[in-house]
């Protein structure tokens, strides 16, 4: 009798279990990057919420930034706006528009890379980007909400989905400290904390991650020890050649005239002011450093002023593909990257 009761209990449990949703999809998808090296960060798709209706304030109204906090500058049609790291740390993507320029400012806290993507895709559709919750080499994988395709931020292309293989179209940016930003653009508007989400923007969410060279959260395909992992560098790419310019090079503010991918560029930076920018220099103009009256950062032989946005004599120098980031991320994505010495 008791064995019958035991059998009935087990049968009951089996039926109960089988009634549950065991559905799992194991559809294999094609990835341009090794899918075994793509990590699920944990929060899930859109678990880190992008900012899709950004709100801005004047500098005087911003009270959550300290002098050394970093900020990203984006400009278009004569307008410039600032996007503080302390907000980007929590949201990673801001979908915004200035004039006709629809862009997604993508930012990965783990690689320290901010890249400004064109939201208008090659088919003419304008999309928004969200945080997929997946990472490759510790780096953000945004997805476009138009086609649900997954893009690699530092790889600069679509790596999974309908748009696989399509290259990301970029807009220029600059990165600097809050202290310098206020000198550069005292009248610019800055993204404020009215994001629609309740977060502690005064607190950096990753502890000592910015400075601890041993803390790399997920596996890397290549760990390049030529520099310390968290050294901040400007990576510049032209014609598939990559070169890194460490911020420490600019302990003394300077102008570097260099060639990348067969093209002339000028790289200007200051460790104290906490910025490095690169522009194409097709005319091989010789610039000299001049930080006396920001946003002017250099003068040419004719004493014409070049500002930090690459504007000189009503001309706009072209910014090559370039962005700041932790050294380890460039070493992981582009093992052949050259370091300027």
């Amino acid at each position, binding site marked *: 009798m008791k064995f019958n009761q*035991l059998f009935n209990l087990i049968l009951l449990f089996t039926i109960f279990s089988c009634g549950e949703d065991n559905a799992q999809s194991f559809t294999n998808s094609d*990835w341009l990057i090794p899918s075994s090296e793509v990590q*699920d960060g944990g929060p899930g*798709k859109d678990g880190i919420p992008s900012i899709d209706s950004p709100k801005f304030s004047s500098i005087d109204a911003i009270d959550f930034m300290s002098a050394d906090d970093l900020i990203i500058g984006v400009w278009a049609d004569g307008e410039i706006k600032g996007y503080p790291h302390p907000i980007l740390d929590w949201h990673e993507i801001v979908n915004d528009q200035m004039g006709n320029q629809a862009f997604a400012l993508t930012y990965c806290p783990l690689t320290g890379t901010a890249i400004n993507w064109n939201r208008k895709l090659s088919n003419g559709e304008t999309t928004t980007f969200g945080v997929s919750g997946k990472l490759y080499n510790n780096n953000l994988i945004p997805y476009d909400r138009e086609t649900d395709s997954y893009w690699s931020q530092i790889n600069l292309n679509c790596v999974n989905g309908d748009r696989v293989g399509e290259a990301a179209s970029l807009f220029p940016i600059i990165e600097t400290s809050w202290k310098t930003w206020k000198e550069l653009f005292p009248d610019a508007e800055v993204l404020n904390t009215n994001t629609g989400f309740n977060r502690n923007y005064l607190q950096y969410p990753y502890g000592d*991650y910015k400075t601890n060279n041993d803390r*790399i959260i*997920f*596996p890397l395909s290549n760990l390049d020890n030529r520099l310390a992992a968290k050294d901040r560098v400007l990576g510049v790419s032209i014609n598939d050649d990559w070169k890194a310019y460490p911020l420490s090079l600019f302990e003394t503010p300077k102008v570097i005239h260099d060639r990348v991918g067969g093209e002339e560029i000028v790289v200007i930076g200051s460790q104290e002011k906490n910025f490095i920018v690169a522009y194409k220099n097709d005319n091989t103009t010789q610039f000299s450093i001049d930080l006396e009256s920001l946003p002017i950062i250099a003068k040419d032989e004719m004493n014409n002023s070049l500002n930090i946005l690459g504007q000189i004599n009503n001309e706009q120098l072209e910014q090559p593909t370039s962005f700041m980031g932790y050294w380890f991320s460039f070493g992981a994505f582009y093992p052949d990257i050259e370091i300027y010495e």
Partner: protein
Amino acid sequence: MAKTVSFCSKVQFYTEIKIGIYYYVKMYTLGFILLPLYLVITINLQAQTCCTAGAPIASVLDVGSTVDQPLMIALSYEYNSVNRLVDQNSILENDPRTRSGQAWMVHFNYTINNKWAVSAILPWIQQGRNTLSEQETVSAFGDLILLGQYTPWSKKERKITIGLGMKLPSGVQNTRSDRNIVLSPDMQSGSGTSDFIGRFSFHQSHLFTQNLHFQTALNYRLNTTNAHFGDPDRINGRRFKFGNETTWTNMISYQTVVHTSFVTPEMGVQFRYTQANQEQGLAANNSGGFWLNYLMGIQLLFKENYLVRLSSTLPIWQDLEGLQITTDYRIGAQLRYLF
């Protein structure tokens, strides 16, 4: 065989019937108040979750895991709603995520003699993660738990039990998403590791009155590192370790009789501490912390051999490392059959 814990032996059952009837009139009203109150509270909770990989060990072991009958089999269900976004000790709003963990468990307990007992728990785990744009569900067998318990001291109404056990990696640790990406460790049904469990409990029957019982239990789970999470063949794989967990649970229960069944409301508090998880050998940000939980439940013993237990956990305070989505409530049900 010494009858150690409360009402589970037949002899003690009928003895306590007499005692119970004595208190019947007094407790009848109390029972009628507590039971509906309990049901109202649990039913009105809004469903949501959090689970570490594998079975929710502590909650299974915390109460009533020691029985006097030679053989016990229990079927348990737990729903763990993880929908509270907490920044250290501040509850935040507007989180786009919901998480849930469900566990169906078969629990065997065999009492060898008045000193020794062994237990095994085999769970079936379902993890759920929902955001505004994606719903993911994983269902699979979880990690098998084996536990040996020893009673070094037992005296009439008091009993001390210590236990040692293991959590074995029978669960799945490489479930993939529909894009063929291995899901995060907390979404797997198993941790892929062999972990160790230590337990100490003290039970006091008939505290102050014949009907009041008290139990305190300390559980410790020592977790090990999964050096190849999700991909055992990859040399430079993801090294992940769930933080070690300590729980200290204190429960009081009041045994009464309603009609011919024993009805035992119970309540208590639980202190829970987990260390931070580890990624690549270093403490992971935004994991680990301290929780203070309020526990409430009720047991119904009927037809001599059947026991039904309903339980719930409500976090009443937490101090967590960084920002975490954490449990906002847990409910459970268990049906035990005593041979």
